[in-house]
């Protein structure tokens, strides 16, 4: 049975080799489905539900792009990638967007030849301890045993932080978040350190979350965002401005509840341009007028997506913090739609 696939793929490979690779937008439109790389499962950010539908904060970005480009947020094929396979999958064209809580760093942007289309979540590394330990600041953690995922930037950040504060620690290397939970709860380590969003999600699953606290210190910058390949500016613009549209919608008070009303025209020209009732911004990158409206309709504006997946009403319960609008003291700041 494999042979026929083999043949099919071989002939397909031969065919594709003859064609020059077209622009990503044209490929996606021709295919009729957006290939989106997500993680194999990060609580609140991407996970399949009981019916196999992918849900989460990173997933919502892909749905919004699919809605903008293909007019249907369901037309996304989610490809689960691991830490090792994610960049190759993007570089080889297996996926069109990588939306997999990947940190924006210099070398990933420059050396790996990817473009970050903005930041959808500002994260940072934190510490979680049991309340019984009686610690209220990371500065008091001298000599602690720390559960730490091996081979990640968190491991390096931890070493830097303890060194610069003249403290010592004993690392307990672990492989996955699930393993870390088991080890931490079993008392194998005093402290568990990973990104603050991950700590909040982990703490939410404990039988006794009130007995554990996340310390106030955040020791690293982890701006997470969707990535695309270098060299296709039209496509990176589409992803970037779709994300900006979600952020701007929150700033201007456009929600999934009032969007139909506002799309009939308002006296705010910025909203009108965003929703396509004035001007034709979409045509500038090969989409129609209503791309922004559809992107917002897919899952609501940035604030709604945040609240539905990881916000304070969910068990994960993350406060907006740095991820609030710039008007609310956060870092979200969409350039103008003009």
């Amino acid at each position, binding site marked *: 049975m494999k042979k026929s696939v*083999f043949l099919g793929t071989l002939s397909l490979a031969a065919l594709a080799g003859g064609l020059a690779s077209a622009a990503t937008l044209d490929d996606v439109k021709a295919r009729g489905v957006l290939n989106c790389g997500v993680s194999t499962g990060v609580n609140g950010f991407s996970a399949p539900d009981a019916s196999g539908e992918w849900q989460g904060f990173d997933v919502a970005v892909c749905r919004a792009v699919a809605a903008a480009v293909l007019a249907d947020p369901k037309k996304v094929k989610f490809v689960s990638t691991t830490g090792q396979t994610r960049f190759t999958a993007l570089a080889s064209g297996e996926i069109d967007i990588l939306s997999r809580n990947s940190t924006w760093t210099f070398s990933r942007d420059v050396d790996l030849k990817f473009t970050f289309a903005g930041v959808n979540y500002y994260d940072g590394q934190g510490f979680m301890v049991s309340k019984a330990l009686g610690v209220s600041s990371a500065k008091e953690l001298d000599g602690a045993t720390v559960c730490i995922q091996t081979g990640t930037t968190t491991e390096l950040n931890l070493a830097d932080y303890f060194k610069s504060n003249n403290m010592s620690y004993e690392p307990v290397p672990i492989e996955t978040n699930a393993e870390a939970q088991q080890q931490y709860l079993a008392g194998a380590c005093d402290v568990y350190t990973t990104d603050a969003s991950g700590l909040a999600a982990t703490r939410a699953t404990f039988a006794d979350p009130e007995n554990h606290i996340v310390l106030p210190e955040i020791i690293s910058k982890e701006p997470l965002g969707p990535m695309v390949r270098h060299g296709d500016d039209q496509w990176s613009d589409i992803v970037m401005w779709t994300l900006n549209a979600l952020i701007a919608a929150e700033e201007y008070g456009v929600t999934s509840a009032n969007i139909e009303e506002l799309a009939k025209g308002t006296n705010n020209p910025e909203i009108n341009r965003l929703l396509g009732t004035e001007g034709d911004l979409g045509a500038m990158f090969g989409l129609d007028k209503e791309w922004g409206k559809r992107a917002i309709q897919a899952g609501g504006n940035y604030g709604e997506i945040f609240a539905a997946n990881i916000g304070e009403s969910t068990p994960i319960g993350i406060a907006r913090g740095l991820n609030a609008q710039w008007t609310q003291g956060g870092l979200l700041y969409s350039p103008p739609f003009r």
Partner: protein
Amino acid sequence: MTRTIAYVRNQMQGQEPPPVSQIGAIRWMHENLFSGPLNSILTILSVLCVGWIAQHIGPWFLNAVWNADSLAECRQILQGETGACFGVIKDRWHQLLYGFYPQDSYWRPNLAAALLLVALAPLLFPDVPRKLIWFSLLYPAVGFFLLWGGSIWPPLVALAGLAVGFAAYAALIKTSSLAATIAAIIVPILWWLFVSGPLGDALAQATPGLGLRSIGSDEFGGFMLSIIIGVTGIALSLPLGILLALGRKSDLLLVKVICVGFIEFIRGVPLITLLFTASLLLNYFLPPGSNFDIILRVIIMVTLFAAAYMAEVIRGGLAALPRGQYEAADALGLDYWKAQQLIIMPQALKISIPGIVGTFIGLFKDTTLVVFIGLLDPIGLSSAIRADTDWNGIYWELFLFIGALFFIFCFSMSRYSMYLEKKLKTDHR
């Protein structure tokens, strides 16, 4: 004349029951559990150990909660007591078994699995009608069509390759058996490489309605994925392994060098490296935009890996045959392939059964390594399920379920191998 001697008994005494210590449970326990001081100590320690485990795990199983939609609900029901939360299995069993396969199409993998048993029956058991072997030959195409769907033509055209190969063999067998054998291998490969793809597509376009809904590899997952990779790898690695083993013992230098090089290379490299090659490196070699199915890539790598080990297992069987068997085959005037088919292989394979089945079981369990390249096999799905807010924090329940599924499969393979060994036992050692 009868004389009575005072000291001779003239009446037999009734039979005494055996002493209490020599019958029933007491004797069994004495013989098996308390036959000496060391064994007695070990027995007591074992009982204590089992009791300790039961005391700790028992409540966890006894309090198990099946009717819950989230871990939080489980905890609410348990109210602080320890207990398993098997609600996750009830909620997600279909995902662990079928991955993201569309629910309204579950009948397809089910039917494929049932037909797989039918196809395997004539290969495994001698009492099954021999005619069924024809169905076994057809099964790869049937299984592929059921699982992946799409037009019915590509699998049919691929099957036709076998017929073409047989026709070439039949046409040439009168002239030379070597030429016929080579043609029987080369012609189908050429067919599959150059004819079957375009022809299948052309026929599919001519009759668009004929087929099942096409389901992409990205929707495959769970235990179904393990079985697909495992069964295909097992089915392909045995013949490939036999050829490699024969090649390694061949007198033809080139064949020998290629086979030895292949076997030693594959055995020198970890499977996970090969899987990463399949997942990452091949993408760079293939032209951009080409879509070389990831499951197919993994199956090829797993098959090559298992074939190298299989070759060495079978070489062990070949080495165990006395030289006289080869000479006897020569003396009967059998050519190489006939000798292999009638005399050498039946004995060598029989000797290697434990090793072969061991390799099969190893291969089947190795399929869980695909989790590292992002395929959602049961292990991968367990972490995906844990990433759902409802079930984050659940751990042992999922692994128990997955472990039980794997145990059923591996244990039945192992029992079958014992049955086969017993049945084929002809020597009187």
